[in-house]
C-alpha cells in the first residue's frame, strides 16, 4: 500500500497540480517523482536552483570542461549591505529584495545558464560555453541589471535600489579538478569585489602561473641561493 498523502500535500502547497494519470499507475508515479525532484532542487523563496542542485550542476560542469576545455564561467553574487536592509526595513522587505535580485539574475543570462540561490543573500550563476573574452562583459551586465531594478516596498510605499558584488572564475580546463576549487577561486574574487568597495565585478586573471617581482625577490633572496648567483 503506497502512501502519497505527504507528497501530495507538499506539491499542493508549492502550487503544483496532482498528476493527471491514473493514481498508482507507472505514469502517475513518474510524474510524482518528477514533481518532487523539481521541488527538492528549487529554492522556496525565489524559484531559482537551490544549493543542492547547484552543487550537482557544478560537479557535472567540472567533469565536462575537464575533457572538452570549453570555457565555463562561475559567477558568485552577493547583495551589498543586505543586513542593513533587513534591519531598517524588516525581513519581509529583505525577502522582496532577494526575489527581485533573483529575477534580475535569471533575466540577465541565457536559458542554458543556471541561476542559483546558494545562501541567504548569496547567489551563483553557472555559464557553460562562455568565451573567456566575454567574462567581464557578462559579469558587468549582471551587476547593472540588478542595479537598475528597484524594489517597491508595499508597507512603506517607496522604492529601494540594491547593488551586488560579483566575483568570477573560469573552470580549470583540461585538468581533473573538483567543484570545491572552482568555487573557492570564484569566492576569492567575490571577497576582492567586497573589499574594493562593493557594487563591482572582479574576475580572476587568467595568468595565475606568473611570478611577480616581489615573489621572485623573496624566492631568490635567501643566503644560499645568492651564493650561487
Amino acid at each position, binding site marked *: 500500500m503506497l502512501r502519497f498523502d505527504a507528497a501530495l500535500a507538499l506539491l499542493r502547497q508549492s502550487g503544483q497540480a496532482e498528476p493527471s494519470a491514473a493514481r498508482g499507475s507507472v505514469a502517475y508515479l513518474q510524474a510524482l517523482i518528477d514533481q518532487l525532484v523539481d521541488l527538492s532542487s528549487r529554492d522556496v523563496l525565489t524559484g531559482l536552483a537551490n544549493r543542492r542542485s547547484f552543487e550537482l550542476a557544478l560537479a557535472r560542469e567540472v567533469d565536462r570542461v*575537464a*575533457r*572538452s*576545455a570549453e570555457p565555463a564561467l562561475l559567477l558568485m553574487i552577493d547583495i551589498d549591505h543586505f543586513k542593513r536592509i533587513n534591519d531598517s526595513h524588516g525581513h519581509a522587505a529583505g525577502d522582496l529584495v532577494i526575489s527581485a535580485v533573483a529575477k534580475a539574475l535569471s533575466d540577465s543570462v541565457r536559458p542554458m545558464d543556471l541561476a542559483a540561490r546558494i545562501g541567504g543573500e548569496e547567489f551563483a550563476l553557472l555559464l557553460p560555453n562562455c568565451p573567456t573574452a566575454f567574462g567581464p562583459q557578462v559579469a558587468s551586465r549582471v551587476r547593472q541589471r540588478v542595479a537598475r531594478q528597484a524594489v517597491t516596498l508595499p508597507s512603506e510605499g517607496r522604492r529601494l535600489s540594491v547593488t551586488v558584488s560579483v566575483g568570477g572564475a573560469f573552470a*580549470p*580546463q*583540461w*585538468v*581533473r*579538478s*573538483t567543484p*570545491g*576549487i572552482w568555487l*573557492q*577561486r570564484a569566492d*576569492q574574487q567575490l*571577497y576582492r569585489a567586497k573589499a574594493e568597495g562593493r557594487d563591482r565585478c572582479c574576475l580572476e586573471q587568467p595568468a*595565475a*602561473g*606568473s*611570478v*611577480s617581482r*616581489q*615573489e*621572485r625577490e*623573496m*624566492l*631568490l633572496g*635567501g*643566503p*644560499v*641561493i645568492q651564493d*650561487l*648567483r
Partner: protein
Amino acid sequence: MSESVHPGRAMARVIAVTSGKGGVGKTFVSANLAAALARAGQRVLVLDADLGLANLDVVLNLCARVTLHDVFGGRAELADALQPAPCGFTVLLAGSGLLEYSRMTPVLHDRLVEVVDAVRPDFDIVLLDTGAGISDVVLFTLSLADELLVVVTPEPTSLTDAYAAIKLLATTQAARPVRLLVNQAQQRGQGLVVRAQLQQVLDRFVNPPLDQPLQLALLGEVPYDAAVRESIQQRLLLLETFPGSPAAVGIAAAAGKLLPP
C-alpha cells in the same frame, strides 16, 4: 578512493614527476628512483608522459617495439607496450616526437585517463615522467596523479619555474601531497634551505586564501656528482653503474622515504 583489504590487490599510487624548468634531471630522477623502489620490492611502472619530446628510452638505452603512441592509435594492446627496464621495473615508452600529442584534445584526455586507470591494479607505484613547462598536457598529466614530486636544482631559473608550477597547481588543482627533490645540490643541507625558501614564498603569496595551505615536504637531496654525468653518457642507470656514489646514495634515501610505512 577506497583502500583494498588485500594489500596485493591495492591500486598503485600514481606519482607525477615534474619540474617547471627542463634540464634539471627529471627523467634521470624518475628512472633511478624507479630502480631504487623496485629493489625495495615495489612493483614500479614509469610512464613516459613527455608525449611531445619523450626521452626515457634514451636515458635507459631501450628501444621501444610498441609505444604509447601505438596504444593511443589502437594499433596495439596496452599489455604489449609494457616493457621491462634494468633493475626490475617496468616502463611504458611514449615514442619520441609525437607532435600530435603536444596539445590537449578530448581524445588525448580520454586515452591518458584510460591508460593510467588500466595500469593501476598491476603496480604499487606508477611514476608519470612529465614534460618540462606548464603546458596543457603537463598540467593535465599532473592532475591525474595522487601525489606530486617536484624536481628542482638550486639555480634561480629552476627555483622560479618550480615555484610558478607549484603555485599554479595549488590554485587550480586538487590538494595533494607535494614533495620536493633537490637535484645537483652544491652543499649538504641545501635541500632544506631550498624547501624553506619555496615554502616561505608560498606562505606569503599563495597559501593565505587557500582552504588547504600547501606544505612542501622535502623528499631528499641528490648532491652534484660527476658519476651522474658518466652514467648518463653510458646510458645506464646510476644505481647500476655507480651504486656507491653520493648521488646514488641520495636517490636511494629519497626512494626509502617514498615507501609505504
